[in-house]
């Protein structure tokens, strides 16, 4: 059955087999979640002037007029604009390492990218282990790190929501993958009820098993350790099960709550996974 025509015929027939109806329980669960899930606000500006309503056009024209007049006054005032001062005021370069942040390309994974993030100032990414020769700097999640060139990388385009374990489903996290295993990195604004590492960490420790039930239950053990990533204190929550393993690090920096998680299916030993995870975390650098 290995000539292409018979193979394709057989595969077409085979792919028809299987369930064709969604289990009601799965649909009900989704609808239940949706009941308590807010929609994102659509903050995009219409791409073409002609797409806008008359009032929107008038407002846009007024805003543009004010900006043009303001810019003209600024540039034509005595002394003019000191266009060189921006470069002079940039941060002093750090001795090592030498990679400097620049806004990363627009992520393409998410169907609808979030509003343009604030450009990052220059900063140096910490040195990584041998072989970690690729650098990613995220202007969405405001960090940088190094990863092996043999890994694949999918950028996220959406900032995580406050008090949320990242939704699995594209765009809510950066994803570094070695084969079919990998690490999620995401960040979102801290809420007023969980404004620091202690409260944020306690909440994540409770919320994570609720969202990922396969990492709890019979045969599972849970551990916690304190560590430092990017110079900030962090807490790692470990969920070790017969068939599933998760190492989930939380940290806080610049008003954002960071979550860096290694999820895997398999009977791993913590003593095997942790050194690998630590290597990955070694170069993690928060944007200033």
């Amino acid at each position, binding site marked *: *059955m*290995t*000539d*292409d025509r*018979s*193979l*394709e*015929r*057989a*595969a*077409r027939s*085979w*792919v*028809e*087999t*299987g*369930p*064709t*109806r*969604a*289990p009601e*329980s*799965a*649909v009900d*669960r*989704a*609808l239940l*979640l*949706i*009941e308590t*899930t807010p*929609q*994102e*606000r*659509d903050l*995009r500006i219409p791409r073409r002037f002609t797409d806008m309503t008359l009032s929107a056009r008038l407002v846009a024209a007024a805003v543009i007029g004010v900006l043009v007049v303001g810019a003209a006054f600024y540039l034509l005032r005595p002394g003019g604009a000191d266009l060189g001062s921006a470069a002079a005021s940039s941060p002093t370069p750090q001795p090592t390492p030498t990679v400097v942040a620049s806004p990363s390309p627009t992520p*393409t*994974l998410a*169907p*609808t990218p979030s509003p343009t993030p604030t450009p990052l100032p220059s900063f140096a990414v910490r040195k990584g282990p041998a072989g970690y020769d690729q650098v990613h700097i995220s202007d969405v999640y405001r960090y940088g790190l190094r990863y092996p060139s043999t890994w694949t990388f*999918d950028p996220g385009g959406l900032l995580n929501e406050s008090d949320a374990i990242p*939704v*699995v*489903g*594209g765009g809510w996290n950066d*994803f570094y*993958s*070695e*084969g*079919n*295993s*990998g690490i999620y990195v995401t960040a979102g604004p801290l809420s007023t009820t969980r404004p620091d590492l202690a409260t944020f960490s306690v909440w994540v420790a409770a919320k994570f098993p609720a969202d990922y039930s396969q990492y709890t239950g019979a045969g599972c053990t849970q551990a916690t350790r304190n560590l430092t990533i990017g110079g900030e204190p962090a807490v790692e929550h470990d969920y070790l099960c017969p*068939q599933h393993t998760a190492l989930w690090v939380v940290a806080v920096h610049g008003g954002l709550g960071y979550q860096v998680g*290694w*999820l895997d*299916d*398999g*009977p*791993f030993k913590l003593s095997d*996974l942790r050194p690998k995870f630590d290597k990955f975390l070694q170069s993690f650098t928060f944007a200033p």
Partner: protein
Amino acid sequence: MSAADRSRHHLRDEVDRDIVERARRGDREAYAVLVHQVSDTLYAVAFRILRDTGLAEDALQNALVLAWKRLPHLRETDRFEAWVHRILVHACYDESRRSRPWTAQVRELPIDGPSAPDMGIESIATRDELEHAFRRIPVEQRAVFVLHHYLGLPLVEVAGILEIPAGTARSRLHYATAGLRDALIADSEPIVQEGRLA
């Protein structure tokens, strides 16, 4: 129902644009109507990409929730089904990566040697071989294969849904078919053991 019928009925005609518009403006009841209209097809597609009912349920659930969140960003409401399929496929990618197969795969040695060529899909052995082979090809290729062969979508439309160039869709389909063939050949050869630490 053939793949072409599925394509015609499920990706173009069944979803009412007004209901999409209401859901886009935050009407949860309207969205529930949409969910009931599309969830069977989405689940069938997810299962065929992931080959696992549990993972397919998770992908479906995540896709439906994410689609609800992002619905206000959808500009072309008549493209809702293509849009939600794109979200589903990305949810499948995540599920596939999160649930990396770890257990060693040990095949039994065929008593009578490798399978006879061109046994046809009626053979249970062939189905098992295809199942094994399909799980081995990359999930991105599986997605193109399922959208094209199961939903009956032209490759240009598959490319549009996945937001990839048409040439990429074509090459993924090519490599999926080649991967199936290679895996089937490998399946007819002696035991190997797989397994790799993360």
